[in-house]
């Protein structure tokens, strides 16, 4: 509870949370919120300006930009978030098992990670798409396959370090079980580092999905996706630059909100990060020595 209240007392964190919640809600309620169908072509309104009926204007095929932005939330944000969460969960489980068990389990799991990490990311993605076919789901599956090993490495090195800490040794002398030690003593200390890496990974995955959509390997036209909207707008970048604004700003806004929120979460979880100056150990020590000498 203390951690949640600490998180909620941070205004920037609250704002980021509100922005992300609004984006997620808008994505889920897109069929009701969108003023027009996202793939409704109207060549008469080609490059139409902002208006009451089309608040963000029309694109090169006369489609409603606002509707496409709203429908684009699902593949751009929600599915990417699900893919990042899945790779974090798999990576955390493997990393914790390897770091805590050590020995042969560690060696085996880490060699598996080495194999996964030895493939260049895009080659792996292309291989998965080659086998399973184009489509967003397959791209995200490829991302999960690639990124879990990266998270596993990070978690494993943290766990190795923390498992040797004296407070963990003390818990072991009390007869605390391995699972309790992992979930109560080790995992919470790994979370801040993991949150930072996961949030930066969210941003990069979102941009990579957009890039692959641009190459025609991800979302297929006429479905809406922010990255694809950006790449479509690129054709008229110099004559109609405003078409890049809406999807570009949405990507910046979402990635920034995730990064701010992860920073705030890190501070909320780690008491040292959000430390106040109310207790000064050195001064307290000096006072204690002075008192005892006196």
């Amino acid at each position, binding site marked *: 509870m203390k951690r949640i209240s600490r998180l909620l007392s941070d205004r920037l964190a609250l704002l980021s949370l509100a922005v992300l919640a609004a984006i997620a809600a808008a994505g889920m309620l897109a069929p009701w919120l969108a003023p027009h169908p996202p793939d409704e072509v109207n060549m008469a309104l080609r490059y139409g300006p902002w208006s009451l009926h089309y608040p963000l204007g029309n694109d090169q095929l006369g489609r409603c930009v606002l509707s496409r932005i709203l429908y684009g939330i699902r593949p751009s944000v929600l599915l990417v978030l699900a893919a990042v969460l899945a790779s974090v969960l798999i990576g955390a489980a493997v990393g914790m098992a390897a770091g805590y068990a050590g020995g042969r389990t560690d060696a085996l799991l880490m060699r598996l990670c080495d194999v996964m990490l030895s493939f260049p990311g895009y080659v792996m993605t292309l291989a998965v798409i080659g086998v399973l076919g184009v489509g967003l789901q397959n791209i995200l599956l490829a991302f999960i396959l690639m990124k879990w090993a990266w998270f596993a490495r990070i978690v494993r090195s943290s766990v190795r370090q923390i498992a040797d800490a004296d407070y963990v040794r003390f818990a072991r*002398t*009390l007869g605390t079980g391995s699972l309790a030690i992992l979930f109560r*003593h080790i995992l919470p200390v790994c979370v801040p580092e993991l949150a930072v890496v996961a949030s930066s990974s969210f941003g990069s995955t979102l941009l990579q999905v957009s890039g692959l959509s641009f190459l025609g390997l991800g979302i297929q036209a006429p479905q809406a996706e922010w990255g694809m909207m950006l790449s479509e707008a690129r054709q008229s970048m110099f004559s109609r630059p405003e078409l890049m604004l809406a999807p570009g700003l949405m990507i910046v806004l979402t990635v920034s909100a995730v990064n701010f929120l992860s920073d705030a979460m890190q501070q909320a979880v*780690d008491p040292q990060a959000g430390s106040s100056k109310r207790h000064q150990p050195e001064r307290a020590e000096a006072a204690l020595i002075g008192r005892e000498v006196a």
Partner: protein
Amino acid sequence: MLSVEKIAKSYSSNGWRGPGRHLVLKEVSLECRPGECVGIIGASGSGKSTLGRLILGLEQPDAGSVRIDGEELGRRSRRGAVSAVFQDYRSSIHPFFTVRQALQEALGGSRRSGDSKRGSSRKLETALEQVGLDVSYLERYPHELSGGQAQRIGLARALLTGARWIVLDEAVSSLDAPVQVQVLELLREARGTYGTGYLFITHDLEAAAYLCDRIAVLHEGRIIETIETERLGELRTPYARELLDKFRLGHALVPRQHAAITKEERG
């Protein structure tokens, strides 16, 4: 009686000659009576911390056993029998726990201790007072504590487990000299109050002589000599004499109050 019987421990090593085993402890035997303080002194790499970890059950020996009143401890929990205060005060308390949570963990929760919430809270406050800290420290986090305060909390935590013996693994080594004296005083007081036995692992003969009844000198994985603190001057083996000479030199350069040695020098 806590007894270590012919305990041996080795670690695998991968040198350029190929994999091998590095023998750290060679048939070490040691006894510690209830309420007794035994110092285990030796240089870095002599195996003293390994011995501490084996007694605490953090590692398993290759041979030999740790027994309490004749009963082998094996892989069983040491709760209530042996506890520890470690060297690194920075990592000795969970960084996300308040002092209250850290002490509560040692107490074992109300289900284990059978205390009401108020009763266990009172126990925590008493334990803090015993180590010279007031109740305001209960809500502090480890990074808000100094080294001496963290070690005091470490001692309070070990005492709260109700252990009959506490392994003090270089528990004062990383502290400044004045804070070292405070913590050593506190250890003496706690021993007087609770009758807890100590296994004081250190490389500092002066601190060991100040606190311990007996001192065992560990050298290259073997206990080469055990002696009563009052008879420290009668150490025979060359390595132990060398330690004593270094200590005398240090003591001559920086005179400190020291009961055992004063007695020995008088003699």
